[in-house]
């Protein structure tokens, strides 16, 4: 492949291929696209733009967003967080596709899981348990877990009624991008683990003989826990765990299923980043982690990349600005040149960060989306981003804002 020029950015084609989003969307074998990356890099916008482009190229797509900006949500017709996929108004169905969008409601998703798997009386009991209320609405990792749970549900539904052939998932704004891979397993491990058995032992035992088999160490541990947490909390936790335990056939199993789904060749991951050191470092961790977990990486999207046109370098622009500076009637041109020099400086920094990433991760397809002057708040804006993602920008306005 010849060296490619991407909006003023020349990359060494020997180490980096350009990510072909359109080819990815045209591949009917791909049923799930997961957009992941650090917070604040434009993940949700990328997910929405890809879903829109997929739908307008004939896919029947649904996009699961986690925490969209108000105006982005409005552009997708998402006025409330109700956990139900709804058709997006205003997309172009000419190619025979469809587009639904939904916002994840973490607590409701958890409630639904409970209601689905427990008898009505038992469900009521669990939903009212203070421990459940805390876990379902606040536990670090619940959002990640529920995003994956919802993904599993959508995937099942798409098999059952054929409503969708592509699910695009946004991932929660985690502390680190890796949280969303780890959280489900962590919850599964915990609920299946030894500590839970320990918590449950006193509740279950009620004088049963095997309580005597509890080692002195375990009794001591329970004693310490009671002392630390107080008896009420421990009792609530025990009731909660006992209730969950009887109905689930193992959270671990569910987490494992999710894992398997993510490893399936029908899934593709897009790692989203911004051209900054931190965001690209997170992207690098994620890329490496996906490889370790045998999860299929389609490529990396770098949003908000500053490009420069015109072939005028920073140094040349600064020199020219200096040469014009003394003539008042040429002040405007000098100012324009200084602005250009500023942009070129930013573009150089971006290019440097991206080059560092590609050097460390050769061969990973990457696409740069240029910085937009304004925020995205309608379908046209998303279309422009989609076009830029496919490397075929149809307007200069294409790009990802905030």
């Amino acid at each position: 492949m010849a060296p490619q020029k991407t909006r003023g950015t020349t990359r060494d084609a020997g180490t980096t291929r350009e990510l072909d989003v359109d080819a990815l969307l045209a591949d009917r074998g791909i049923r799930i696209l997961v957009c992941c990356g650090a917070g604040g890099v434009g993940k949700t916008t990328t997910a929405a733009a890809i879903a829109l482009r997929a739908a307008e190229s004939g896919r029947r797509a649904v996009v699961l967003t986690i925490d969209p900006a108000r105006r982005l949500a409005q552009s997708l017709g998402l006025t409330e967080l109700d956990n139900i996929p709804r058709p997006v108004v205003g997309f172009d169905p000419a190619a025979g596709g469809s587009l639904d969008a939904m916002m994840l409601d973490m607590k409701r998703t958890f409630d639904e899981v409970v209601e689905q798997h427990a008898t009505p009386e038992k469900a009521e009991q669990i939903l009212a348990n203070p421990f459940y209320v805390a876990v379902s609405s606040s536990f670090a990792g619940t959002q990640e877990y529920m995003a994956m749970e919802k993904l599993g549900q959508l995937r099942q539904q798409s098999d059952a009624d054929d409503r969708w052939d592509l699910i695009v998932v946004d991932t929660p704004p985690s502390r680190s991008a890796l949280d969303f891979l780890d959280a489900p397993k962590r919850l599964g491990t915990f609920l299946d683990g030894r500590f839970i058995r320990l918590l449950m032992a006193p509740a279950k035992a009620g004088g049963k003989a095997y309580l005597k088999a509890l080692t002195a160490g375990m009794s001591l541990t329970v004693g310490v826990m009671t002392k630390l947490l107080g008896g009420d909390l421990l009792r609530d936790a025990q009731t909660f765990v006992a209730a969950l335990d009887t109905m689930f056939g193992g959270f671990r199993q569910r987490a494992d299923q999710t894992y398997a789904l993510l490893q399936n060749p029908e899934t593709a991951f897009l790692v989203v980043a911004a051209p900054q050191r931190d965001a690209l470092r997170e992207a690098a961790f994620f890329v490496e982690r996906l490889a370790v977990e045998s999860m299929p990486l389609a490529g990396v999207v770098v949003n908000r990349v500053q490009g420069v046109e015109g072939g005028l370098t920073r140094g040349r622009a600064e020199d020219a600005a200096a040469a014009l500076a003394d003539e008042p009637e040429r002040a405007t041109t000098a100012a324009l040149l200084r602005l250009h020099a500023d942009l070129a400086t930013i573009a150089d920094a971006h290019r440097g960060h991206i080059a560092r990433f590609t050097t460390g991760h050769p061969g990973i397809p990457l696409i740069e989306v240029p910085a937009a002057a304004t925020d995205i708040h309608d379908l046209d804006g998303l279309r422009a981003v989609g076009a830029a993602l496919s490397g075929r920008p149809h307007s200069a306005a294409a790009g990802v804002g905030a």
Partner: protein
Amino acid sequence: MPSTSPSHGVRLHVVTGKGGTGKTTVAAALALALARQGRRVLLVEVEDRQGISQLFDISPLGHEEVQILADPSGGSLWGLSVEPKAALMEYLQKFYKLGRAGALLQKAGAVDFATTIAPGLRDVLLIGKVYEAVGRTQGRAKDRVYDAVVLDAPPTGRVVRFLGVNDELAQLARMGPIRNQADSITALLQSRATVVHLVTLLEEMPVQECLDAMEELGAGGLHVGGIVVNEVRDPVLSDDDLDAIASGAAPELAHRVAGDLESVGIKSPDKVAAVLLREASDHVDRLDLQAEQDQRIQAQGRAVFYLPALSGGIEAGGIGVLADELTTQEMV
């Protein structure tokens, strides 16, 4: 320090903002500004991102406090990355003198439980460590070890929950030592000794999150300090230039600019002039957007501080520039 400064009498500065707004950078600049005034300052991170060590180009921080720098003023800056497991063990050791039981808890998975799963517990452990550092004293005079603690807190989306952990915990742990600890922490966080500073960019989403967080923080009984607007770009063009570009006086302007470019020997001046004017037009759009967002910030009637975009990056030298800005603008 003027009494109008949001830092008057503050011992704990909590810095938050939407992801990507540079809250770690601002927290570091604030801590450095305080240290340069002769104070002994602890800069704390709680998400194990190693943002502080990267900013100051030092070895990764751990659960031990290390000195990052000593200032000629007599002040010093210390760093700490709170690790929940270590915090839990420290807590158990301090309050319960747990030797064997601590190890047993670890073995049984209770430590994993407390530090990763239990609702709010992890956060209480993290804040608990910060609380301990704020209140720590030394010597017979019981002097405070740190004059100020600056916390690089979780992003706005999670900060209220993080600082309000104790409410959640209070509902769960209705009594006992954890409850007592939670109550003491809440008292510090809701006192005037603690302020929460919000970092934002002049873009729609970060500003929206900033405003939402201010409302939530207020409702949670926490005190908002300053709003720090990060990465502000100086207007490169004069108002007249901006007006000319915005008014679309393009053909004459393009012609004039091309002539100027040609006079200093720039090749294909017409093409370059068109590029420059397009860039300027984007710049105008961006400035309009910034002005709009700035108005939303100003409308809050809070102390607002502006930090420049540093095109050269934010390594230690850049942090110094930002620290001086905060001092000049009397944030500290």
